């Protein structure tokens, strides 16, 4: 029978331990996890990119809900364990759940250290530890006001850079003379400070915090010298403390952390401890590599006796701030028995320092150029004698043995046991073997199989070079399809960065995201224009020169260069007066063809461009507005006659269709959106192949989406059943807004839904009322700028240059 394993904490260390355990001994344990955070296991190291906007929460989830189900793990989300009863071998959560265990793993991690100064508990003072902290910071950053980060270490600087990227005015307060003094020597700390300041972040060193001041909420930080730095947000990032309260209460031996032996066992043989809360060999750890080593050791210990033991090793430190390259490992204090080699290149902003003892490397600091980090660390780990290459050591691997400065050659020259991924302890040989034996060709597959570059990601370049070396041309590194040849970024990254960096013009996007061309191309410009229109409805000035001709002149270009015009017929309903007006326009402008469209309206074809304003003017007098038949936007809402006429109709489908169309017309979307409302399941309006459709039934309205009847044919997915028209409208609007915000330009709803997952869309739109309402509100806000009839604007003179030649040169003039 399976033994019961209970884990307190659901961070990266226990997550990794379970992976090892399920691989080594599947089915041996029945696993229960208590997680104080209300969510699954995510990559805490990547919180900084989430804060800066370079990644989203979904990108950093390590184990999705499916993983727990697959492995039969019971996960109590949002349950904080309040007691361990070692005699009865049970744990109890704050929500009253009690579980018995055969073996218990305590992985309660750490708590942020709060400096005990007056005002430390004011609202507006937060720490930087988990996703809730990041969300709190993101909320605060929307104010674009001032933030103070207390602590100039790794976390503090990443927080400062993230808040800066979000548009806040940030000051870092650090008590020591230089930044990151535990990882960097003063020279590198100085360069780092310059680089941080170059991003517009102020840095105050040797500054000791005396109090947080404010009336009812944080308003500033008072320093020991009396200076007050104003701030609406104060982030305390001064360090962490092992969270050992629970273990201490249970009578386990606790020093700085929960004391364990080198097989991660506490002084109760049934209880292990891993992660930041554990103290092994007198050390506590905060970086991921040793924590993952603990996970490996603990998994082996749970499986049975053996000799996998925890061994201390120096862990390299890297700062995850985009554009700042920094690497440090080992010991770099000055001492009599030590020598150092230093290279400085002020103009290039490079500083390298290697500390030696007896011709062996004991410490390395690299700033500005860090590609040799793994090589130095490897020499240090092996305690290699560097006497022979001492003169050129500092120039890095490429200079040794006369090899050319080819980054691929440098990777090729690495030994098989050279460590590539520091976080996960993956060496070169393991990666190469995985690539060849499993036939891996994509970076994500290599990550999945080896874990290399799956944590902090800074070794991604090295892993990719190994793939190139191993696979040759078979490796296609463009895992993300770039938007176009003007950039290497994909649509999703561009959209995320537009929001994160607050980019509000096309030139700003191209400058900040390092576009390779001066003004883009016909693929990226319309896409960027749409993203900016969607993301900043009130601030962005629509760039018509970046729109396809149809959207620029609000008509559909035909193969002979003439245009077609389709006025809106709300819900496909028209009248004698409207039809008469159309007939008059057709006669007056000698329009050669008139056709009924598939979307229940009338198309006039073959209109000369010069005639467009005249045609629109006459149509406008009859009450018509643009049908947007040319737009990546809401096209038609097709309806049947519903309860008004039909003996089978269950609801007023015509009325609902008109209501939806009147609410949503004018909105721009990633690709065209066609809708329909059918009054009963006989579905005469063909709602089940539309982008969004409604099937009315006796009990309400069944909302459908993600159908297609073009290049692809696909029936819709059912989003869900709602009772009232109001609810149906809210759901449809929210769904459309979610698609507007997440869709890639020219990606129809059915393709977007396939990519995101129908369940996820249902979760956000139907199950999460708050989120649905937020989507709805953003759509309504955007509509206040979008619902302007473009035809009426042009009838009254807007863009009139579009519709007539700049000059006419006749025979008479040409003959002059």
């Amino acid at each position: 029978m399976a033994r019961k394993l209970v884990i307190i904490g659901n961070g990266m260390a226990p997550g990794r331990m379970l992976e090892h355990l399920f691989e080594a001994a599947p089915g041996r344990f029945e696993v229960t996890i208590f997680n104080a955070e209300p969510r699954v296991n995510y990559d805490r190291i990547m919180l900084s990119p989430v804060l800066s906007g370079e990644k989203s929460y979904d990108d950093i989830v390590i184990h999705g809900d499916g993983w727990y189900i697959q492995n039969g793990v019971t996960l109590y989300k949002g349950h904080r364990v309040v007691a361990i009863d070692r005699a009865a071998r049970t744990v109890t959560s704050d929500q009253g759940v009690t579980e018995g265990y055969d073996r218990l793993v305590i992985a309660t991690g750490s708590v942020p250290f709060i400096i005990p100064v007056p005002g430390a508990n004011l609202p507006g003072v937060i720490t930087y530890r988990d996703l809730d902290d990041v969300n709190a910071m993101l909320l605060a950053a929307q104010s674009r006001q001032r933030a103070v980060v207390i602590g100039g270490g790794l976390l503090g600087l990443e927080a400062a850079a993230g808040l800066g990227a979000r548009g806040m005015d940030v000051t870092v307060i650090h008590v020591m003379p230089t930044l990151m003094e535990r990882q960097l020597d003063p020279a590198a700390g100085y360069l780092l400070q310059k680089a941080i300041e170059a991003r517009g972040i102020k840095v105050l060193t040797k500054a000791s915090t005396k109090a947080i001041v404010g009336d009812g909420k944080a308003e500033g930080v008072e320093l020991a010298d009396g200076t007050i730095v104003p701030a609406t947000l104060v982030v305390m990032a001064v360090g962490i403390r092992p969270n050992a309260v629970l273990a201490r209460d249970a009578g386990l031996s606790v020093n700085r952390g929960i004391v364990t032996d080198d097989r991660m066992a506490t002084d109760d043989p049934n209880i292990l401890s891993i992660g930041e809360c554990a103290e092994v060999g007198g050390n506590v750890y905060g970086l991921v590599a040793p924590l993952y080593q603990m996970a490996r050791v603990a998994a082996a210990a749970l499986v049975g006796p053996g000799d996998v033991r925890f061994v201390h090793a120096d862990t390299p430190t890297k700062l995850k701030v985009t554009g700042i390259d920094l690497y440090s490992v080992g010991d770099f204090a000055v001492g009599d028995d030590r020598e150092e080699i230093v290279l400085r290149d002020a103009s290039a902003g490079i500083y390298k320092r290697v500390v030696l003892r007896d011709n062996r490397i004991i410490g390395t600091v690299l700033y500005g150029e860090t590609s040799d980090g793994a090589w130095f660390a490897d020499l240090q780990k092996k305690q290699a004698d560097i006497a022979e290459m001492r003169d050129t050591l500092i120039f890095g691997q490429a200079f040794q043995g006369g090899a050319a400065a080819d980054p691929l050659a440098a990777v090729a020259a690495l030994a098989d046991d050279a460590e590539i991924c520091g976080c996960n302890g993956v060496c070169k040989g393991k990666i190469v073997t995985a690539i060849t034996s499993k036939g891996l060709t994509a970076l994500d597959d290599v990550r999945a199989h080896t874990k290399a570059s799956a944590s902090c990601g800074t070794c991604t370049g090295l892993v990719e070079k190994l793939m190139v070396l191993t696979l040759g041309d078979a490796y296609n590194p463009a895992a993300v399809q770039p938007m176009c040849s003007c950039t290497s970024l994909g649509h999703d990254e561009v959209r995320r960065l537009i929001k994160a960096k607050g980019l509000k013009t096309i030139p700003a996007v191209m400058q900040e995201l390092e576009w390779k061309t001066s003004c883009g191309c016909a693929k990226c410009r319309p896409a960027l224009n749409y993203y900016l229109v969607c993301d900043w409805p009130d601030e962005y000035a629509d760039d018509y020169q970046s729109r396809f001709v149809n959207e620029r002149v609000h008509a559909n270009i035909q193969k002979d260069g003439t245009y077609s015009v389709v006025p809106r017929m709300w819900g496909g309903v028209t009248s004698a007066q409207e039809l008469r007006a159309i007939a008059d326009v057709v006669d007056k402008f000698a329009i050669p063809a008139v056709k009924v469209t598939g979307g229940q309206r009338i198309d006039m074809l073959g209109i000369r461009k010069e005639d467009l304003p005249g045609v629109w003017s006459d149509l406008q007098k009859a009450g018509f507005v643009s049908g947007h038949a040319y737009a990546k936007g809401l096209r038609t809402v097709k309806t049947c006659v519903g309860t008004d006429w039909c003996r089978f109709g269950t609801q007023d489908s015509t009325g609902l269709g008109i209501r939806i169309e009147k609410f949503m017309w004018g909105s721009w979307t990633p690709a065209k959106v066609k809708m329909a409302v059918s009054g009963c399941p006989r579905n005469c309006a063909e709602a089940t192949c539309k982008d969004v459709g409604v099937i009315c039934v006796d009990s309400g309205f069944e909302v459908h989406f993600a159908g297609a009847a073009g290049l692809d044919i696909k029936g819709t997915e059912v989003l869900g059943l709602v009772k009232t028209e109001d609810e149906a409208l809210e759901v449809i609007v929210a769904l459309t807004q979610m698609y507007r915000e997440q869709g890639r330009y020219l990606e129809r709803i059915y393709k977007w839904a396939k990519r995101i997952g129908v369940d996820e869309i249902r979760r956000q739109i139907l199950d999460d009322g708050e989120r649905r309402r937020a989507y709805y509100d953003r759509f309504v806000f955007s509509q206040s700028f979008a619902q302007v009839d473009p035809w009426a604007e042009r009838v009254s003179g807007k863009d009139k240059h579009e519709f007539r030649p700049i000059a006419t040169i006749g025979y008479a003039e040409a003959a002059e």
Partner: protein
Amino acid sequence: MWHEIGLLADIPRRGARCVTTPQGRIAVFRTAEDRVFALMNRCPHRGGPLSEGIVHGNSVTCPLHNWVISLETGAALGADEGSTPAIPVRIVDGRVAIRLDESHRIAAE
């Protein structure tokens, strides 16, 4: 001979205007850097109106089938082959002028 057609400011940046001539329509383009080019307003592919295309760098993308045409030479770029005549253009004091080939006129008469 040279014919003045209007002001540089009459042509939108990264856009174009048309000139009607006895030889057919001529598209006059203005780039983001204010360089001005003129081409016959016919894509070498299916005759699409190049003046309606998106102007990027020194090229225009035809609105009908996305051929990319060099504004400098009128030649199709990339894998496509074909060319549309380029018309000489000059700017004096912000006024744009194009030169029409008179032999055409004689031939047309």
